[in-house]
């Protein structure tokens, strides 16, 4: 017997057959697939005991309750708290991706000081000491009002600590980051005499009329609004979206009416016109609980708001306007809301007032299913601080942003006016500026001018967890812990119709050498000594928080939030004790004036309208998960895509996907085109939130920022009222 090639082959075949009949290939395949799941670079949660910590999310003003899952002391997941009144188990994509902000490699690890244009790490002691030194010098020079502080919110103990610090130091310049609430709060104050935030009882509405609000794109507390909109559809309610482009909200609405941008206020008055003319207002409410209807009539019944004129301005049909007004007035529980997109820009006060009047006419104010004035919480009752002569004198000076002045008597904060103020005079009005929220260098319109204005400030201090645009331009960066590493009280949730206090608690020990903003304030006060030290008897923000909340602390700590279940809307506090359509303060605002987009329509034939997307957050920075989830209609590789109507593209001779230069009176950006019939012809839709600075590798260098192309537009009350700018597109 000879062993030749054939016998060898026979052996191989036998081997193959035998192998196939043995478990080896099948078992091996299975094992190898499991092995691939266990490669060391595959991210898996660590092994260990799982625990949950209840806290509150502060990534947007939504104030959702969250349940953070930890394995040992590593955060692995953030879920919505199912027993929380705002989100009831829901969570938005940003909130769910919050873990990535905690563990982001781009966080600031220790205090930084800019030396010769570059950041060098310094100790907390040195940073606080040096900044306190500058503060002392300025105060001794008798100019304490030249200090300003920009904070995310004006509520809660951190904001109150900052305000107290400025007061005792001698500066009236506490500035809150702008939002649609600015206009709503002012509208409530003017018509109802109530110092309150606007809550919207969306869960009980039967006809929801949204004038450009991105109800599914970050407006209010997203999980609350999502649930309410879903429930509205289940109840066979009606939901109409008025917006120039087919946003996600418009796509989900029963009716999308693509009106010309910037004509929302005109339309509101057009609806009021029809309602008044046809006598459709809710008579019992209007007759017994309102005053000054004559003033409204005088304005709204003008020809300018007759259906034909409104149709002309808004681009809708006159018939549509009339039908909409009738349907709205006839609905059981109608409610109109405004605040464009996510509501991060105030919008004009007159526009908000128009929407508020519309609600009052149909009786949807301070009732179930209406706009509800939610009082500002009053748990912070500290003894009046003692002030020295310098402080008293400083507090007498007018605010640098003009809020509360003779010219802008209604506004409380006008961050949008700060760049203008800074650019005036030989020396800027602000010598030391602290920024603990809002990232103004990115989120204010007209970025270039804003940057120029801020660069005049001799000492800019940023208190941010990240090296965002404002921090990058600062002289000192004092890293703040993220919301998963600190204590914080969160009074109220955006647009939520009941008073609520949420508690943020440390889920993990601070990862880096950070300090909560409240503690920075206390440390600065202690360094400055005198009345300042005396005004801050607490050794830390945490101690301050516990003592301030006093009896409320334990329930809050245990439950994570305190909800005033029994809350009922309060009576109006105006002189007439009624809702006022007209009064002395409202008089200058009576005649409605829309704000045209800045720019010469002859040179700039198109109009750029920025829009918000739930996956892009303007101020804070977007976590990598969300950047990855961006639609190709927004981001194509590293280019931002702008929406234009195919007809507009044809007129310009541009095709889908073409590279173009988007030029406005303020700047220019490289964009790619996205052709869609979901936008009115003549407009260019551009997402906010891209074109970020170099601080985050996942986010930087992608697309362009809409704010670089926009101009600041101020209404007669000082609020930012811009909604777009004239623009043109050129082939790149």
């Amino acid at each position, binding site marked *: 017997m000879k*062993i030749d090639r054939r016998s*060898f082959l026979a*052996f191989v075949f036998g081997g193959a057959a035998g192998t196939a009949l043995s478990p080896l290939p099948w078992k091996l395949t299975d094992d190898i697939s*499991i092995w691939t799941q266990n490669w060391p670079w595959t991210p898996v949660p660590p092994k260990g005991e799982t625990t949950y910590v209840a806290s509150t999310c502060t990534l947007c003003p939504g104030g959702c309750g969250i349940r953070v899952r930890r394995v040992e002391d590593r955060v692995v997941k953030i879920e919505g708290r199912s027993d929380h009144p705002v989100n009831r188990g829901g969570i938005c994509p940003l909130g769910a991706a919050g873990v990535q902000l905690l563990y982001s490699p781009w966080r600031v690890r220790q205090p930084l000081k800019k030396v010769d244009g570059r950041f060098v790490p310094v100790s907390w002691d040195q940073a606080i000491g040096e900044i306190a030194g500058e503060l002392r010098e300025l105060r001794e020079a008798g100019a304490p009002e030249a200090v300003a502080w920009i904070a995310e919110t004006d509520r809660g103990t951190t904001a109150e600590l900052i305000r107290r610090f400025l007061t005792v130091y001698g500066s009236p310049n506490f500035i809150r980051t702008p939002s649609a609430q600015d206009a709503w709060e002012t509208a409530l104050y003017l018509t109802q005499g109530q110092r309150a935030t606007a809550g919207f009882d969306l869960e009980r509405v039967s006809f929801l009329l949204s004038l450009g609000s991105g109800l599914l794109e970050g407006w209010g507390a997203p999980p609350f609004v999502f649930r309410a909109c879903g429930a509205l559809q289940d109840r066979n309610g009606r939901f109409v979206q008025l917006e120039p482009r087919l946003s996600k909200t418009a796509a989900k609405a029963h009716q999308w009416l693509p009106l010309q941008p910037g004509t929302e206020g005109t339309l509101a008055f057009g609806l009021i016109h029809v309602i008044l003319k046809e006598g459709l207002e809710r008579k019992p409410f209007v007759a017994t609980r309102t005053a000054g209807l004559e003033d409204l009539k005088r304005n709204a019944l003008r020809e300018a708001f007759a259906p034909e004129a409104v149709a002309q301005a808004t681009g809708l049909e006159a018939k549509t306007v009339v039908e909409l007004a009738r349907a709205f007035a006839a609905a059981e529980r109608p409610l109109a809301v405004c605040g464009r997109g996510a509501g991060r820009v105030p919008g004009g006060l007159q526009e908000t007032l128009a929407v508020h009047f519309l609600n009052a006419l149909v009786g949807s104010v301070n009732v179930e299913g209406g706009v509800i004035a939610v009082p500002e919480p009053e748990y912070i009752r500290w003894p009046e601080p003692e002030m020295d002569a310098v402080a008293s004198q400083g507090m007498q000076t007018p605010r640098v942003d003009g809020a509360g002045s003779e010219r802008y008597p209604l506004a409380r904060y006008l961050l949008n006016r700060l760049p203008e103020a800074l650019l005036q005079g030989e020396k800027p009005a602000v010598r030391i500026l602290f920024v603990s929220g809002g990232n103004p260098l990115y989120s204010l319109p007209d970025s270039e001018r804003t940057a120029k204005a801020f660069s005049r400030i001799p000492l800019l201090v940023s208190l941010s967890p990240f090296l965002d645009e404002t921090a990058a331009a600062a002289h000192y960066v004092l890293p703040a812990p993220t919301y998963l590493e600190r204590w914080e009280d969160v009074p109220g949730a955006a647009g939520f119709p009941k008073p609520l206090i949420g508690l943020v608690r440390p889920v993990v020990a601070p990862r880096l050498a950070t300090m909560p903003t409240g503690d920075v304030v206390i440390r600065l006060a202690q360094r400055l000594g005198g009345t300042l030290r005396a005004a801050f008897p607490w050794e830390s923000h945490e101690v301050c928080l516990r003592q301030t909340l006093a009896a409320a602390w334990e329930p809050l700590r245990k439950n994570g939030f305190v909800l005033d279940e029994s809350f009922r809307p309060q009576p109006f506090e105006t002189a007439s004790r009624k809702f006022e359509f007209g009064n002395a303060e409202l008089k200058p605002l009576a005649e409605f004036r829309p704000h045209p987009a800045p720019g010469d329509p002859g040179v700039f034939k198109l109009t750029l309208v920025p829009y918000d997307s739930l996956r892009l957050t303007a101020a804070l920075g977007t976590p990598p998960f969300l950047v990855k989830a961006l639609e190709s209609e927004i981001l194509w590789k590293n280019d931002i895509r702008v929406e234009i109507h195919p007809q507009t593209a044809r007129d310009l001779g541009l095709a889908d996907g073409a590279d173009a230069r988007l030029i406005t009176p303020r700047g220019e950006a490289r964009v790619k085109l996205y052709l869609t019939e979901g936008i009115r012809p003549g407009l260019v839709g551009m997402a906010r939130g891209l074109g970020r600075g170099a601080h985050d590798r996942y986010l930087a260098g992608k697309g362009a920022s809409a704010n670089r192309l926009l101009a600041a537009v101020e209404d007669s009350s000082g609020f930012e009222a811009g909604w777009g700018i004239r623009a043109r597109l050129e082939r790149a």
Partner: protein
Amino acid sequence: MEEPKSSAPSSRSESETDEKGDGAGAAIILFFILGLAASLLVGWIAFPALLYSEKRQPVDFNHALHNEIVDHGCASCHFFREDGSFSGAPKLAQCIECHREANSDDPEEIRFVEEYVKPGREVPWLVYARQPDCVFFSHAAHVRMGGIDCAVCHGPIGESTSLKPYQVNRITGYSRDIWGWNIAGIKRNTWDRMKMDDCAECHAQARVPGGSVQTQKDGCFVCHK
């Protein structure tokens, strides 16, 4: 190029083949069988022997003995925490409740006290039932809500007097108990295997809800969250 050379003998080889036909055929069959036998041996015996390495548990625990003493059966040591999560293998703190000192002169117990209790070291128990990280498993859902006995999945381990050896798969790092001790994957008892198919079998029988809305098939997301 070698064509001419080989073409000449080719006619001859044909006749040779004929002549030696039986012998060559037998050789082929023989080698086929040899190959078959060898690979079967490798596949069924050598491969499993090589695939798994055997480890002993750090302490040889006697389940039967403990089970007689405690009041609440398995749940005495393997209990649900207050929040509903399952404690799994006991932590040293639980053992210490009874074993601060050795309670007998059993050498294994004395070693346990010396090596773990006194220095306060956690016992690195080897978990037979550890599943990959991509699997979400809730004891509460199965035991409390589904009313399933421990033994349905874990077998009569509570009656054993000695811990069985722990064999670890060298490729995956998981226990042999997941695939099952039968290398062919055949099982006789519900607790013989813990692969996905075994979970699915029971889920299908019990009509566990949570099927995919999109595919109308069984719910992947029930376990793979």
